[in-house]
């Protein structure tokens, strides 16, 4: 788990890497990724014809691959990528390969200190979690999810074969949910967005029971009502109660365990999120056609926008921020119902300070990237910037960015915002 208390919070700027070290002598360097604490910068580089290496803080190490893709850092700072050697694909964690090779790998997921990835082996599909592959693989698998314990995984899986254009067999239901590789006995036409409860003991997902009937299934048991459409379910923390947006008579409402909790008055309602204490249920909603906003406990913010995305909650779940796209393809951040001043060409996902008093994000304007804290620029402009992070006491902000070939991390005072 991410522990920010041991990060370097001494004020000031430190150049971590001259990226020229990575790009020197190579055919090209792909996009730089940086660790959450800003101490490590890594990039996949094409070192020679059909040869790739991973450059970490300027060091290429020994290993070369036929291909390397999908790099990412875990919250704890491990660098994960998928690499190909001798026509097989491997998971690379901090440049150490998991032992088993696969026909293909994709969709790296990180959670709770673990790493999971989707696998194809001999045209059978499943998942590999922390180096362990499911015993059962399937004709197809998708909609992968990784639980907060860093161990539990689930996916939609095809449990029966189907020939070409066998439409009635498909409609009889050949998909199910596999939890840690074991399928539910219930089968559905489609399965979408499985999600774990916070203790990882239960799984809920959207299921399509016929071409027209959608509902939510929890541990294989479906709600007692069907709907015209449903969206992603969410568990109420600390309980087995499941909430999900449901569409009734052309309008959206929020149901819990099959009973309508929020009246179906919304033109759209999706991405529900509970606060950690379960007191507040948030979602992105639309009060009318083209009028998107954020909804807290069935009450919308007073401002609406053509598009709202990236809903993020404060640690106590009492506040929220979301990206809003205004007319003219300009973006802003909306925090607790108030839009920040200024228009940006792009806003990246926001983060709250631990005490909830500050919100930071990367904003792009005219090709330059700034960190904004509570709507004001913080520190220098960059050619590229990475998601900021607040110190545990919320007094400082870690700013990471690239100017020219120089990647730096800076710790700035965040108290003045």
């Amino acid at each position: 788990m991410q522990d920010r208390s041991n990060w370097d919070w001494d004020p000031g700027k430190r150049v971590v890497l001259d990226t020229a070290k990575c790009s020197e002598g190579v055919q090209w360097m792909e996009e730089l990724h940086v660790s959450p604490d800003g101490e490590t910068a890594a990039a996949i580089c094409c070192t020679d014809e059909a040869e790739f290496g991973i450059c970490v803080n300027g060091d290429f190490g020994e290993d070369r691959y036929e291909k390397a893709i999908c790099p990412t850092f875990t919250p704890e700072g491990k660098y994960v990528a998928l690499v190909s050697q001798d026509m097989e694909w491997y998971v690379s964690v901090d440049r150490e390969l998991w032992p088993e090779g696969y026909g293909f790998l994709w969709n790296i997921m990180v959670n709770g200190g673990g790493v999971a990835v989707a696998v194809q082996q001999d045209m059978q599909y499943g998942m590999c979690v922390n180096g362990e592959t499911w015993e059962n693989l399937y004709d197809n698998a998708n909609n992968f999810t990784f639980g907060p314990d860093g161990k539990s995984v689930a996916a939609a899986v095809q449990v029966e074969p189907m020939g070409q254009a066998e439409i009635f067999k498909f409609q009889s239901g050949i998909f199910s949910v596999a939890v840690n590789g074991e399928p539910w006995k219930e089968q559905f036409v489609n399965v979408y967005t499985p999600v774990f409860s916070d203790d990882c003991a239960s799984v809920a997902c959207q299921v399509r029971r016929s071409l027209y009937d959608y509902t939510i299934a929890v541990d294989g048991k479906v709600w007692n009502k069907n709907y015209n459409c449903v969206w992603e379910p969410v568990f109420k923390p600390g309980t087995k109660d499941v909430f999900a947006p449901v569409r009734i008579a052309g309008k959206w409402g929020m149901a819990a365990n099959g009973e309508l909790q929020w009246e179906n008055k919304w033109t759209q309602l999706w991405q529900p999120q509970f606060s950690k204490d379960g007191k507040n249920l948030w979602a992105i909603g639309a009060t009318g056609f083209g009028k998107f906003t954020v909804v807290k406990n069935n009450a919308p913010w007073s401002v609406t926008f053509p598009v709202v995305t990236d809903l993020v909650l404060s640690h106590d779940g009492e506040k929220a921020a979301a990206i809003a796209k205004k007319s003219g393809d300009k973006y802003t951040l909306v925090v607790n119902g108030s839009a920040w001043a200024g228009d940006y060409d792009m806003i990246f996902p926001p983060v709250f300070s631990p005490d909830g008093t500050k919100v930071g994000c990367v904003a792009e304007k005219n090709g330059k990237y700034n960190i904004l804290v509570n709507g004001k620029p913080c520190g220098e402009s960059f050619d590229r910037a990475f998601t900021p992070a607040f110190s545990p006491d919320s007094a400082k902000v870690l700013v990471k960015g690239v100017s020219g070939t120089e990647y730096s991390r800076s710790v700035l005072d965040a108290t003045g915002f």
Partner: protein
Amino acid sequence: MKESKFDRKIDDIGLKEGIAKLTPEKIQQTFQKFMDSEAGAKLRVYHETCVRCGMCSEACHFFVSHDGDPSYSPVGKVTQTMNVLINKKGRVDAEFVYKCAQIAYTECNLCRRCMHYCPLGIDTGYIMSMVRRFCHLLGVTPQYIQDTAHSHSATFNQMWVKDDEWPDALLWQEEEARDEFPNLRIPLDVVGADIMYSVIGPEPKFRTQLIYQAAAILHEAGVNWTMPSLPGWDNSDMAMYTGDFEMMGRLKRAHFECAQNLKVKKVVMGECGHAFRSVYDMGNRWCGWDNYPVEVVHSIEFFAYLLRTGMIKMKTKFPGPVTIHDPCNIIRGRGLMDELRFVAHEIAEEVIEMTPNREYNYCCCAGGGVINCGPPFKNVRVKGNKAKAIQLRGVKEKGVSTVISPCHNCHGGLEDIIHGYELGMDLKFLGDIIYEHMEKTKAVE
């Protein structure tokens, strides 16, 4: 026309088994629910406004191609289907539903040409799409297009491309292209790229050269672009054409969320027509967006931009005259006729227009999901588009042997017309010609 008489019934397992499960009560109840909760005022207004003047007839390629048979006219098709349903309040038999489905799914391309000729502005394409919706609600859809809709629902693409096959196809094309452009990348999942390039399912399945060509053009132009590695990459939407609007909305949400997660400023889409309709008109609106939530640029517009700005320069032009087939959803639906002509004249030595053209062009007869209804209905498409064959023959006689059309379905439909009427013409995407004739400053000799 008697409603029970239908002498051109074609055997299709989806339709046949679909109606086998129907009862008169189910048909009537479904129709009543459909009228009460979905069809709304628009359909009723159209129904009550149409004066059966027949001005739409000559606008329909099916009518023209069947020597003026009124049963193929737009008003004739509505008269045989929705009008009966409304007048009889859904009290029809299962065979009638079969007839409705066959007409709506396979004898109307939802091309909206007839709308341009209707003095009252009635959108017959909308009415026929409502017939399709009703048939979908009854489970009566042609087998092959239904299978495509199932593919969309299970994989979020229209060709049953599994999650791994997509990035694998991109890596393969990237590797192939590096023989020509040593430093070419197909950048996967680059957050903050300017452009997300999106394609339809057939490209990774059996038209991978189009991905190669697009990558080459984007690489040569020096564009900051990316492609997603996860589902949502396919912008197509046959659920829109089966009448499964809930699935249509799900697909569009996945597609746009893909772009939103990547924080791109634009989606540039490949040369497809119906997918364009699904993002600017249908799917986006089902989701509640009044426009597309991320700007979507069709390849026509994008190529025009690259050529105007000099980001792409043509080394040579395509030799010999070409003609332009205007795809309905891009031209009649979105008004890109001038941009298409700008690009065509930039890349080809000579352009000879078909007649009629631009927004009055005849449909390829594959659009609206008709080609996706599969082999049982291939002859319906070919015979139903003698009008297009006549158009093509007209330019062939002027020396044209190459047809440009920036739409996948148009290529499928025109290919069958060209073969069926032995026209001996070639089809090209804009990207085919640009790739072949552009300056390749970043390529090896």
